């Protein structure tokens, strides 16, 4: 076990190293949010300024786009987590007719090229005469995140021992109580992981959204469009805020978890 502790420490450091690697472009993004650039291009360093923070909401369309993205990500994640978890449970725990087909569809949803998914969804919405707006974007986001949540939850469900639930039922718990008090807590890590994946997929999606958005803009859409003339530093600042809020949530979560662990 001595060797084990050294190994654990190494792995601990390694985990932080991977986090640092994944975050390294974010550091550059944050830096250039403070760049006092004299032109529209924001790629070479011209000295420190806070003016982009002061003018954060100076571009109304960009601000709207950001709120749209956050709203759509939250709603689509909520829907996806509920129905994806249900499907993950069904596939991981039960045997039923159509299981093979369902598995195939889950696979197909991941493997359909985004462009084709976006274009054919647009055709579908057009022929149903459905106006393209935040609702159609949300529908599309649920579609492409669904499989990721399902697969993640299923990976958890199949490791569980069904006898616990049987025991709960034997003790007279109804299906809902069994689910809430036994099943849900035991699959919760899978559900949370799925939720995070769904949120990340939604808030960063470009291709599918660009087909089904109508005249609604999201954050990635606005940014891609602005590449033609130069991405304004406000975009970096908004990215920084998203990241900063995320870090705060992570810290708060860790602190809360520690408190819970101590009480």
């Amino acid at each position, binding site marked *: *076990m001595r*060797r084990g502790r050294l190994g654990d420490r190494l792995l*601990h450091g390694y*985990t932080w190293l991977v986090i640092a*690697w*994944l*975050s390294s*472009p*974010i*550091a*550059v*993004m944050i830096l250039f949010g403070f760049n006092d650039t004299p032109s529209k291009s924001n*790629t070479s360093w011209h000295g420190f300024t806070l003016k982009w923070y002061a003018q954060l909401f100076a571009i109304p369309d960009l601000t709207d786009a950001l709120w749209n993205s956050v709203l759509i990500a939250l709603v689509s994640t909520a829907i996806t987590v509920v*129905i994806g978890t*249900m499907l993950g449970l*069904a596939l*991981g725990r*039960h045997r*039923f007719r159509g299981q*093979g087909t*369902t*598995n*195939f*569809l889950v*696979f197909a*949803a991941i*493997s*359909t*090229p985004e462009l*084709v*998914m976006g274009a054919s*969804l647009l055709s*579908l919405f057009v022929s149903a005469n459905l106006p393209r707006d935040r609702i159609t974007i949300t529908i599309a986001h649920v579609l492409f995140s*669904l499989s990721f949540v399902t*697969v*993640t939850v*299923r990976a958890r469900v*199949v*490791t*569980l021992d069904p006898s616990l639930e049987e025991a709960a039922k034997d003790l007279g718990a109804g*299906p809902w109580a069994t689910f809430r008090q036994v099943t849900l807590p035991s699959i919760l*890590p899978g559900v*949370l*992981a799925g939720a995070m*994946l769904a949120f*990340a997929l939604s808030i960063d999606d*470009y291709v599918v959204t660009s087909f089904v958005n109508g005249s609604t803009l999201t954050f990635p859409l606005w*940014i*891609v469009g602005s*590449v033609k003339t130069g991405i304004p530093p406000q*975009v*970096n600042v908004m990215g920084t805020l*998203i*990241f900063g809020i995320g870090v705060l949530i*992570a810290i708060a*979560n*860790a602190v809360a*978890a*520690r408190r*819970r662990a101590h009480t």
Partner: protein
Amino acid sequence: MRRLTPYLLALPSWMWLAIFLVVPLAAMASVSLQTGNVIDGFVMTFSFSNYGDAISAYGTQFARSLLYGGLATAAMLVIGYPVAYWIAFKGGSRKSMYLFLLLLPFFVSFVLRTISWGFLLSDDGILFGTLKGWGLLPPDFHVLATAFAVVAGLTYNWLPFMILPIYVSLERVDPRVVEAAQDLYATRSAAFRKVVLPLSLPGVFAGVLMTFVPATADPINAQVLGGTGNTMIGNIIQTEYLVNNDYPTASALSFTLMAVLLVGIFIYARVLGTENVLEAAAR
């Protein structure tokens, strides 16, 4: 009631997939057999040769995509497994914090990440420029516009999608079981092989499914990080669809890609030792 449960659980997703995925896939199937052009319209001619033509024209890009996707997936597994392992067994009360931090960079637009990578990795930039200044790298050394950059980019972009599912199945394993196994098998590696690894296989399967498939189909990394001769099939589908408006070829390519990926996952599942890919997926 018990017998109905799985159907009720699956119902909302079925409806979603039936309306928003099956209909478009049927569309794609139909389009892939048509001929024509965007101005004069497309007509169903059951032109199965669209498939043959597409595959023979773009066989190189197909093979290249599978290679890049496969290499990136292997890299993700090697890099990601230890992270998932450590968080699952030693993350303690901070488990969710670590997972969240791994994913957080992906909440910010890929355009910004991409531009930042260009900044960090440019030939004479802060990283390689410095190393070249110290004489540690030859002046012509570059990473951008190479196959390595594309594979590294794919690895970067999908790594959390490998780590999270592995974590999810490992987290279920009781650390005491591992300790007991270590006592039993005497070495850590034997304990790992005999106890931890088998328990994590569903997570590994999920992780590979969620990374290999999208990484192989991805157009963005090749476009941004690659050079000449790194074009992937995702780029071709994009060009055929958006630039050439050759919808039948784009659809035929997409279906072929899906079929190839399905076969890839099937082979992988066989290697894992299961009879049927769909069963494997359901494990």
